[in-house]
């Protein structure tokens, strides 16, 4: 009897060990993916950089991969990305902050709850829908007042602003809510209004959380593909004029990978070069966001 029980235990522990190995293997998959992803981007990009110098890539102001005499200066794509992202932030930051302040300081619990659900929904709407809205609804509307091109950075940016607004609003609201209650009370007890308190105490206290949310929002805007692919156009344009067609880094990658570009061609390699750059930028921003976020905890 005893022996059988012991035996069972042994089997159980053998089985457990097997299970743990499987579990461990699954989580190491994340490491493998990370390594493989970096490696692939890197090696494919290397193929590209054998033909185009890093200097030309990073400082060239003309992006024309399809020309007979192609040129691969990435700056127009970077400018397109920068332009759309900046406009999106200019729209989303004030609105997001105002909403965050309203939610954390003025609204009641129930209202806050529902608005946060709404914001989450807003954020997770498939971005192709925003692309549609920009191209089919917003641009024609804009055209009535300003002479804009059919594909233009502005429409796409506005929709992108709506998309990232929830990130700023939600995360800032969380940062505000983490401010100790008695700091607010001390300010009110000195005769401040809630608005005074937010501006002079709550915001300074949670500035790192707000900043982290903004950086994260920037990173998401830079990495967003569908809105710009649909509505901003596909003209690499080294410009900061928001009313003309531009191409972002993501839109270029989408454009090329969609077509039947043969593997091994320089065009094919170029999406990995651009992808690698995009990866480095967003990775850095995400890292920065986390570092900044940690300041507050001190």
């Amino acid at each position: 009897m005893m022996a059988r029980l012991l035996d069972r235990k042994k089997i159980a522990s053998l089985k457990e060990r097997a299970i743990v190995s499987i579990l461990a293997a699954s989580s190491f998959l994340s490491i493998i993916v990370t390594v493989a992803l970096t490696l692939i981007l890197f090696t494919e990009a290397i193929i590209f950089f054998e033909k185009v110098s890093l200097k030309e890539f990073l400082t060239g102001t003309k992006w024309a991969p399809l020309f007979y005499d192609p040129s691969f200066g990435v700056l127009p794509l970077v400018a397109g990305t920068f332009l759309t992202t900046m406009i999106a932030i200019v729209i989303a930051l004030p609105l997001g902050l105002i909403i965050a302040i309203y939610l954390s300081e003025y609204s009641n619990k129930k209202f806050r709850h529902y608005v946060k659900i709404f914001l989450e929904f807003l954020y997770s709407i498939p971005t192709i829908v925003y692309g549609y809205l920009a191209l089919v609804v917003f641009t024609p509307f804009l055209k009535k007042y300003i002479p804009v091109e059919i594909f233009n950075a502005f429409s796409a940016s506005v929709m992108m602003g709506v998309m990232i607004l929830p990130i700023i609003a939600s995360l800032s609201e969380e940062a505000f809510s983490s401010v100790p209650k008695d700091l607010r009370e001390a300010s009110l007890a000195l005769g401040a209004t809630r608005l005074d308190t937010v501006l002079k105490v709550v915001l300074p206290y949670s500035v790192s959380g707000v900043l982290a949310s903004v950086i994260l929002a920037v990173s998401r805007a830079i990495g967003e593909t569908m809105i710009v692919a649909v509505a901003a156009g596909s003209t690499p344009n080294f410009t900061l004029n928001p009313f003309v067609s531009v191409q972002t880094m993501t839109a270029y990658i989408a454009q090329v990978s969609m077509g039947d570009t043969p593997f091994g061609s320089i065009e094919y390699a170029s999406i990995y070069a651009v992808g690698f750059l995009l990866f480095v930028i967003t990775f850095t921003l995400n890292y920065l966001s986390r570092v900044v976020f940690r300041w507050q905890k001190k």
Partner: protein
Amino acid sequence: MNVVEFKKPDSENKVVEFVGFGVSISGKQIFEGVSFPVYKNCITAIMGPSGSGKTTLLRSINRLLDEFCDVKYSGKLLFEGRDVINDGVDKTILRARIGMVFQRPNPFPGSIFDNVVYGLRLHGVRDKKLLEEVCIESLKKVGLYREVKNRLHRPAYDLSGGQQQRLCIARSLAVNPHVVLLDEPTSSLDPTSSAVIEELLTHLKKECTIIIVTHNLQQAGRISDYVAFLYPNEDLVSHLIEFGQTREVFFNPKESLTESYIAGKSG
């Protein structure tokens, strides 16, 4: 809104007076029928077991209670002769006249200087020189000036806990309040820092009236002139059990509840 200056009472006056005062929060009666005066230039300690409504009582004086919960007041609460509940008193003015210090030091983000002059700036004082003067004076009052004079513009968070609490007292003194409310101001501090603050309060009472909530019987005995003792009944509604001069209440309590509370606490 009525813009009437609260008169500094001349002598012997009751700065604050509770008259049949009661509070209920979201329909739950916390205490009722509380009547006692707070005399000028005295330290009045509010005592009682946990949950007996001491904090609630303190926060109704500057109406801070209204900010975060649904409050119903009953009876009267007189501040310098005017009922702050029913007389349409401007809360901003009220709060400019009543300082408050919290259980845990809670300096604002920003420099030591910013902290001290927060109230003055709020009320529109922009004159740099004046701000500086008041800042120094207030820091001197709490005995912090010598320790921080070289780093007035450094973050307040760099100070120790005891120093931070004194900074918070200085912050409330800068607007020259008539009354300072303190809610267990030393409960998060080490004995040395606590002693410094106790000492400080006994000096401060020459300038303003002090109301302090404390759990520490010895502390109340050492520094207070009057004691108010709250105790909940079986329905968990508190009443004022006893009010009087500290010595009287401690050594010669009229109520057996007070006696047993004091005996239990000190024994």
